[in-house]
């Protein structure tokens, strides 16, 4: 009987329902970019470069009173089991859009009128949860670029798998699970800057998952701060 209970609570990879996969964040890993970060979360390997603020030569899209943030989320052809054809697809176009919206509230964009801040997110290896990993790393890269920021956006997913609400879905939980809820927050205020849901949850399960995701975000935020501290000293 005891064994069954353990089976119910522990997950296929042995994690507790509220346990993150192993996480590693490093700031300032590239030379050419103005800011950069590298992140590993379980088998996910994500590299982010930030360029800017720089001049935006498409005049029609300049904003006279602030900078714009453009994100490009891209999966390397070798990042997944079956080689991915290079170039954007509909999934990466959507993720690029919501990533840029999730990051905007954190940066004092009004300090850089008419400019652009370009965020390039490369998924070098994908194992479930790459969009959250990309946002978390992008935020560190923005800080590494020396941009004035209100807070470090941090992102994490919760979801439902095998009937249980769990944190930070693995690749298999993502594929075979009942629901996925990627969230990004500004940790200082707890406000939500990214929210998507895909699956099937009752409102109660939804609230539980949301709380779990926010808890996960807060844990990851510690690692973000450490990475920045390590790069720039105390």
């Amino acid at each position, binding site marked *: 009987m005891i064994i069954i209970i353990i089976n119910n609570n522990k997950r296929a990879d042995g994690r507790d329902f509220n346990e993150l996969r192993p996480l590693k964040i490093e700031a300032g890993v590239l030379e050419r970019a103005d800011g950069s970060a590298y992140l590993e979360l379980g088998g996910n390997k994500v590299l982010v470069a930030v360029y800017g603020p720089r001049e935006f030569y498409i005049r029609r899209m300049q904003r006279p009173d602030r900078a714009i943030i453009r994100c490009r989320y891209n999966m390397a052809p070798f990042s997944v089991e079956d080689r991915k054809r290079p170039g954007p697809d509909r999934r990466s176009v959507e993720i690029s859009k919501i990533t840029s919206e999730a990051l905007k509230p954190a940066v004092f964009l009004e300090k850089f009128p008419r400019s652009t801040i370009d965020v390039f997110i490369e998924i070098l290896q994908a194992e479930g949860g790459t969009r959250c990993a990309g946002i978390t790393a992008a935020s560190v890269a923005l800080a590494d670029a020396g941009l004035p920021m209100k807070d470090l956006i941090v992102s994490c997913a919760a979801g439902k798998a095998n009937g249980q609400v769990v944190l930070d879905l693995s690749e298999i939980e993502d594929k075979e699970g009942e629901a996925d809820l990627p969230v990004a927050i500004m940790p200082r205020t707890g406000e939500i800057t990214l929210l998507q*849901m895909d699956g099937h949850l009752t409102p109660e399960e939804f*609230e539980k998952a949301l709380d779990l995701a926010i808890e996960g975000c807060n844990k990851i935020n510690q690692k973000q701060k450490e990475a920045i501290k390590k790069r720039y000293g105390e």
Partner: protein
Amino acid sequence: MNSIVPEITRRSIINLINNEERADGRSLNEYREISLENGVIEKSEGSARVKIGNTQLLIGAKPQIAEPFPDTPTMGVLMTNSELLPMASPTFEPGPPDERSVELARVVDRCIRQGEVVDLEKLCIIEGEKVWMIFLDIHVLDYDGNLMDAAVLGCVAALMNAKIPNASVVDNEIILDQEKMSPLPINEKALMCTFAKIGGKFVVDPSLLEEDVMDTRISIGMREDGSICAMQKGGTEPITKDELMNLINIAREKTGELLKYLE
């Protein structure tokens, strides 16, 4: 992207909403007038025209025989595509789908797929080889805000009135009987309710003018029983958890109202 609204208009919309009023006279949680016509395109196996206020969409549902995805060999396939026609707005341009169009198609697709509107298992013809693929084409004709809710409503309606020919397999060949048309295997109904946050308050079913000044957008997809099947935040301002949980309650009520159009 969206047009830039003069500061004075912006202010006046926000002031109204702060007084629980809206430019077109609605209350904060009120939809505009909705109309839904089914089967408007006879050549399309399923179709629907939806209007929410002045927003107008035409949706076609067309079946086609195709191969299943390798990881779901016994399931039919749903393909959702959207075109923000340059006819519908001076801000839409001809060319391949931009990020707004892609987001619309993908969110609608998730809502319908996760809402389990169609029983995809019943669309298998030969396991691992041939299944029905249903194309949902969202044709945006007139754009006055809130495409998401209109698109989900129209897609579900088009699926509900679609008829496909009977497919039988003889000697591993598929025979389609155009005389025997059956409705698609409909499982559930799913609908979407979208909110805009403007000046600290939320309004349901934002008009274009409201979208132009909104800080953030939340779309909530729900099944008939009030369970959640999709959610998408848009816009560049954050929201709080309390706000969100409150919107879920309102969405439950509002999707209940929308359901009546599907009867």
